[in-house]
Structure formats: C-alpha cells, structure tokens
C-alpha cells in the first residue's frame, strides 16, 4: 500500500506508467474509456487495479488480505501480477513489474450520452453507459448490432432517495404513480403523498445522462418523456450532496451513491412493493424491479475490428467478467453482480483467448 507515493516503494519511473503510453509504436496503446458516471466506479476501479499491476501476493489489491480468500481464486490461481495475468490470457507479453502493466488503461468521466458519442466517433475504445445506446444515440437496434458490441458488466438498482427529514416524517415508500406525479409536476407538496407540509424539491440528473434516460424510460415510459424538476445536477455524487443539504428533496441515483443523510425508499409498482433492503421479499436488487438496469461498456465495430473488440479491450473487459472481477469491481462498489449465466454469455462476446 505504498507504491504510488513518489519516493517510497518502486522507482518513480515505473510509477509513471507513461512508459507504456509513449511507446505507441512499439507496444500496445492505452485502452481508453469515457462516459457514464454510474459505470465509472466500476471501470475506474478496474482501471486502477489494472494500472497498478500488483502481484498476486498483494492480497489487498486482489480483493482480500489473504490469498486463499480472494474471490474467485479457484478460477484464477496465478503467481502473475494482475494486469500481466489478464493480458497474458490474450497473448500480451508480461512485464512482471508493479505499476507497469502490459498496456495502460484510462477512464474519463462524463455522461452516458457523451460516452456513447465518443465510442461512435472513435475517440475512445470503450463507451461507458448506464442507459441503452439505442436511447442515448437515438438509433435502432439493428444499427446497434451492426456497429457496436454491448458488454454488460453489472447491474444497477437505481433507487429513489429522499432527504432524511422526509423519510423520518414518514415517507418511507411511494407508488410509481406518485413518483411519476412528482416528476411531472402534478404533485408539489409532500403532504399530498403523506409527508409533512413542505414543498417538494425535485432533483434530477443532467439531461443526456444514462441515469436520466433510464429513469424516463423505466419510470415515465419514454426516453423523451417530459419532466418537471427543480434542479438538475451533473453527476450522481452531486445529487447525493444536494439531497443531503436539503430536507425536502427527492432524487434518483445509482446504487453506488447511497450514503448518510439520505434514504432510499420503497416503491410500489402494480401492487408489488420493492424495498431497498436486500433482505426483503421484493427488493430493488431484483431484476423485476422496473428501474433495474444494465451497466454497459460498448465497443465499436469497424474495419480493423470486425468483431468489435480487439485484444486489448478484450483483456481488460474480461477482467470484469470473472467472479473475481464481479466481486471486486461490482459488488464492492455497491452494484449488483451478474448471475453466472450472464457472465458466461458476456464472455462469449469476447474474442477467443490465446
């Protein structure tokens, strides 16, 4: 746990990681990703692990303090460093050096829409999106299949949160109808839904974000459905902060951003109450929950990569599609892991391993 801090640990040259970036002509180039703030925790964490290229003995970075308890270890069992291992599966030369992966990865943060555009325009290798690319780019499913490969790496329950004060005042659950009413401007006071006599501060995510698109799609019925909110914020974290700062707010976010001072509420759809508590009968973690959504990493099909995914991308994506990856990068950041069958199906989309 000391290697990035300049003078200590490994030499600073290795630290830079830029060795591999510069060597564009000699080695494989950096894998770049861009987009969704919802997917960001997953892909950024994965990228950090990748770039650290820690040895297997460094349990902390492999998901545990103890080698034997590393999630999915039975499938892996390697002495190699993390990036070396996953890269070697696709035929890349290993470096064996900490902080010097066979090729680097870099993840930028914006919105799903931006990520989809970036992958469309070939500016990045991977486009992160929390909404379907069809809705983000307004394209048909055929166009999607023709041009993109959709890698689903995890799922989000997209809960609806309210300020602690509202929750404490008794608003512990709402119906889908009520939420729709709130978000379309028909309900403006908490007393109309059994809360205190306070105006409702309706918080939304920025237009163009996957969270917003999915919310419109899944809650309001159409990706272009009209909304009437009091405030929109760029990323999930900002919504979280604002919900904490106000005592009369409601907002939707990704699961990963729950925190103190805000409370997820149960939502009733057609008689079924989906609760945020994982132990309840129906929960927002269930795939039946209407707001439940896939988290995508799209790659582009073009002449160079008719299959859509080149070896570098595959090596990186494959890391998420292991039990280890699901545990470390999805569950640990509070998202919902994919069932084993889905993992298998996703791995099918990748090119064959070397």
């Amino acid at each position, binding site marked *: 746990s000391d290697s990035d801090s300049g003078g200590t640990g490994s030499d600073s040259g290795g630290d830079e990681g830029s060795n591999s970036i510069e060597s564009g002509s000699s080695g494989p180039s950096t894998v770049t990703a861009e987009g969704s703030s919802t997917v960001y925790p997953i892909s950024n964490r994965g990228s950090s692990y990748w770039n650290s290229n820690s040895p297997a003995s460094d349990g902390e970075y492999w998901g545990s303090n103890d080698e034997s308890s590393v999630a999915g270890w039975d499938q892996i069992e390697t002495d190699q460093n993390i990036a070396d291992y996953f890269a070697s599966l696709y035929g890349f030369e290993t470096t064996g050096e900490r902080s010097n992966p066979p090729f680097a990865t870099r993840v930028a943060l914006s919105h799903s*829409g*931006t990520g989809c555009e970036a992958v469309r325009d070939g500016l990045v290798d991977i486009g992160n999106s929390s909404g379907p690319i069809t809705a983000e780019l307004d394209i048909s499913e055929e166009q999607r299949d023709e041009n993109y490969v959709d890698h689903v790496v995890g799922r989000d329950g997209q809960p609806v949160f309210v300020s602690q004060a509202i929750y404490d005042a008794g608003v512990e659950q709402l119906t889908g109808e009520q939420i729709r009413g709130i978000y379309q401007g028909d309900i403006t006071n908490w007393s109309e839904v059994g809360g205190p006599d306070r105006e*409702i501060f309706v918080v939304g995510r920025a237009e*163009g974000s996957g969270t917003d698109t999915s919310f419109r799609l899944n809650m309001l019925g159409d990706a272009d459905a009209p909304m009437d909110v009091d405030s*929109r914020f*760029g990323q999930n974290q900002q919504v979280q902060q604002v919900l904490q*700062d106000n005592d009369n707010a409601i907002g939707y976010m990704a699961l990963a951003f729950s925190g103190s001072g805000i409370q997820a509420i149960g939502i009733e759809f057609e008689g079924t109450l989906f609760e945020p508590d994982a132990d309840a009968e129906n929960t927002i973690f269930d795939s039946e929950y209407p707001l439940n959504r896939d988290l995508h990493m799209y790659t582009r099909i073009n002449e160079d990569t008719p299959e859509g995914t080149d070896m570098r991308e595959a090596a990186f994506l494959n890391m998420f599609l292991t039990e280890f990856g699901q545990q470390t990068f999805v569950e640990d950041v509070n998202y919902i892991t994919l069932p084993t069958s889905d993992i298998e199906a996703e791995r099918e989309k990748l090119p064959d391993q070397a």
Partner: protein
Amino acid sequence: MSLTPQTDWRASIERRLTRTQKFIDDTDPEALAVVLVSMGSLLAAFVGFLLASPWTAVPLGTFLIATGYGWARHQALVARAVTFAMTTVTLVTLGLIVVFIFAESIPAFQYETASVFGVSVPGLGMFTQARWDAVSEPVRYSLLPMIHGTVMVTTIATLVAAPLGVAAALFIAEIAPPRVRELVKPGIEVLAGIPSIVYGFIGFTVINPWAGGAFALNGGSTYLFVGIVVGLMALPTVVSVAEDALTSVPSVMKDGSLALGATDWQSMTSITLPAAFSGVSAAVLLGVGRAIGETMAATVMLAGVPRISEPLVNVFYGYETLTSLIARGYGSANGVHESALFAAGVVLFVTVLCLSLGSQYIEARMRRRLGGVE
C-alpha cells in the same frame, strides 16, 4: 462631386505605391526576399492550419528557418515584419472567434426560425418564447430563461459591485492614509485573482446549503447569492479601474477646490467624481461585463433548469444563466442542442463586446476632454 473622393482615393493608392516602390528600391534585395519567404510561409502555415492540413508543419518549418536566417542577417527588417505579423494576431483572433462561434450557431438559429409579419427571421424563436427543452417534444431552444437569469445575476452583482467598488475606489484614491492605501490597494488587487471556481466551491458547499436553511428555500440555488458572489468577484475590477480614473484627475483640480475652503468630501463629489465620471462609469461597465461573463460560480451554484422564475424578480430562485448553460451542457449536447449552446455564446459575446465598445467610447471621450484641459 463624386470625382473628388475617387481621385483622393486614387492619389492615396498612388502615394502608397510610390512609397512601396521606394521602400523596395532602398532595401537590400536579399533582405526583401527573406522577409517575403518568411511572411509567405507564415501565411501558408495559417491557411494550412485553417484547413486542418497535416502538411501545416512544412510552411511552419520554412517560416522558422527563413525567420531565423533573417534574424541573423537582416534583424531590423525581419523584426519589423514579425512584429507586424504578431500585431495582426489579435485582429485575426477576434475574426476567428466571430466566424467560428457564429458558424456553429447557425443550425440553432435556423431551427428556431420564427416569422414576424410573414417574414421568417432565423433565431427569432429564441427570444420570443419561454420554452427550452432539448429532450422531450416539442424540442425548443429558447434563450429567454437564460437571458432572464443572466440579467438577474448581473443586476444583483452590479448593485453589489458598483456602489461598493466606487466607494472603495474613492477610499483608496482620496481618503486612505498612505500606509493603509499601500496595504488595501494591493490587497484588493490580489483578490481579483481568486479563481472563480473557488468562489463556486464555497458557494456550492457553504452558501447554498446555508441559504437553503436560512430562508427555507426549495433547494439552495438563488440568483440572490449567485449575484452577490459574482458581485464580489467583479468588485476588484471595478475598484482598480475606477481608482485609476480617480487618481488620473489632475491633482491641481483637487488642490484648487481645497484652496477655496471646500472640504475633502465636497472636492470629491463636486470635482473629482464628475471629472472622472467617464472612467468610473467605464469601470462599472467593465464590472458588468465581468459579471455577465462569469461562468463557474453560476454553473455550480445554480439549479441547472432553464426556467423563468415567478414572479419575474424573485431572487430566491436560481435557475440558469447563459454561461452556466454552456458550461453545463457542452460535451453532452450534440446536434442542434450543441449549436444552441453556441447561440448562447453568440449572445454573450455580442453583449459583452457592446459593453466593451461602450466603455472604450466613454473613455476615449474622457481622454479627449481631459486632453482639452492640458
């Protein structure tokens, strides 16, 4: 009658031609060649860059080599040519800004064509309706809500910055004892340097939550506090420009007033302020320009929904300004939506340019008037 200007024109061209001819005759032919090559390749490099040609490096290299050689051999002439080229950069920049942001905004203007008296005017729809919605039908890009927001923020900021700024400028220029002056003046100048994002950070993490509680607001975003923060930001600009204007009033005028037994305050209000009026109002105009163009504080403090507050003058709402619309939306927007952001930029640019021209005009007039005194 019509002949005279033309002949004038012709004569002036002729004069210029003979002068050029003479210059060419007088100049060392090698120097002339070097300068021609250097300037020509610079022009070519610029054109290449405009066309985004990968070959731009070639003329650029030629320029560097020719200029380097010329610098060693014919420094005076090359220096003159190069500094001239540099002088044109500001003009070219302004031109490019105009061309590029206007060009990008054309689709939005076309999209928002509205007709008045049967004549369809592109862009009119941006100013005649109140709806901005880039997602759901009907998709409309009206700038009115943002113009309203900008006006609110700017007004409040001006109410803060103008009187306080002028008072502080008077203080520094006329009232403060030398010691205090030497501390306060640089102090206020340094404050001009506080980055707007730092103000924004404080605004978002401290002021907004506080305001939300202290006024039981629905959310914490208000034009009131954005305006105050922006006013604080514009304050140093107003202070230093106004202070310059006040100190540039010849001290003999103040002396004249004092020697007649007028008090300091009377001398300030009857002599100094009126004499520096143009400079002071230019300072306020510049402050207004700063406030209009201020982006980051507004972006992080405002709610980010294009809406007009009700009633119109309600300062306890804070929705969106032209600047925050651009900063927030750029990147995720595309197509006409993105073009509409450029349209917002055009409105900003034109407004501030007009303010700048206005203040320059006022200052030029003052200089002429004060010039008459001397």
